[in-house]
């Protein structure tokens, strides 16, 4: 029998994870509430079609909660979640390519789906999104983890199982390539 822990705004992610592992579903719901929007921003910026973001967020949380035993606290829970989101998005892209329904590369700015929304987006933002689509996946994710999510290289390196130096190199390659692409 699980004993739900009292959850407050100050409960750490680690506390909530332990509570979820003990069977407390409210802890899972609290973790979703904390991290769903940053995850949605990351997925949308990484190329998820707007119409799919909700499903991809859910799928990411499901995958994370089901494999939470593998999370050893090597990085923040959110960082770990974002890397899982990257994998979920990659799998989605493969499925979409097989079905030829929603090509991932056309999903960053869903022009046909919502022209009004597209009109609201600034031109520079759209150009950056277009540039990001052309980057290798690792460079794109490192760039977003650093530039959008504001993570340190140590944190990024821990999440991606690489070194801080390698993460820095990926970031700088991404910036250099984006400068070429977005003029």
């Amino acid at each position: 029998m699980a004993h739900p822990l009292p959850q407050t705004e100050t409960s750490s992610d680690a506390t909530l994870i332990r509570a979820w592992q003990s069977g407390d579903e409210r802890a899972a719901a609290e973790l979703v509430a904390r991290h769903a929007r940053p995850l949605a921003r990351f997925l949308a910026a990484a190329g998820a079609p707007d119409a799919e973001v909700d499903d991809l967020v859910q799928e990411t949380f499901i995958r994370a909660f089901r494999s939470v035993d593998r999370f050893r606290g090597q990085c923040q829970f959110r960082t770990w979640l974002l890397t899982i989101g990257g994998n979920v998005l990659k799998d989605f892209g493969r499925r979409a390519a097989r079905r030829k329904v929603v090509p991932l590369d056309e999903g960053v700015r869903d022009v046909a789906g919502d022209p009004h929304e597209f009109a609201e987006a600034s031109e520079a933002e759209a150009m950056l999104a277009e540039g990001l689509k052309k980057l290798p996946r690792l460079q794109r994710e490192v760039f977003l983890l650093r530039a959008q999510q504001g993570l340190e290289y140590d944190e990024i390196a821990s999440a991606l199982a690489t070194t801080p130096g390698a993460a820095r190199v990926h970031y700088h390659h991404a910036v250099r390539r984006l400068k070429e692409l977005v003029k």
Partner: protein
Amino acid sequence: MNEERMIELAQHLGARAAERLNVAATARNVVARLQEPPVERVAWIQQTWLRIAATVVVLIGGSFALLRLRSNEQRPDVIPHVAHFVADDLNDLSTDQLRDVLATFDEVVSDSSAVPESSPDLRELDARQLRAMLRSLEG
């Protein structure tokens, strides 16, 4: 565009998608789905293994068939079926080919009146005689 501007813009990317997300509904759906067994993934794995197995069978079968075809091509002693020769224009066959064909009819030939008594050995016949014999067998 400089790096600072890129960072500023990157922080806005995906903002609308995030605002539209119904966090409470997402949390409810996630919790509900966590209570279900992960059938979908198991089914996906089974499908994937079936596809891999089918691919392996096709590859092995195809390789085997190809090897047999190649080994037949490389064996000069394998004579194509007699019927093929009979159907072809006999004038296109060389003396050796005609001799090979007739050799397969050895038993038939031995009882045939088309074989001259004085030449019981097919090796002693020239191309004209071999053609005449084959035409007589063809009927």
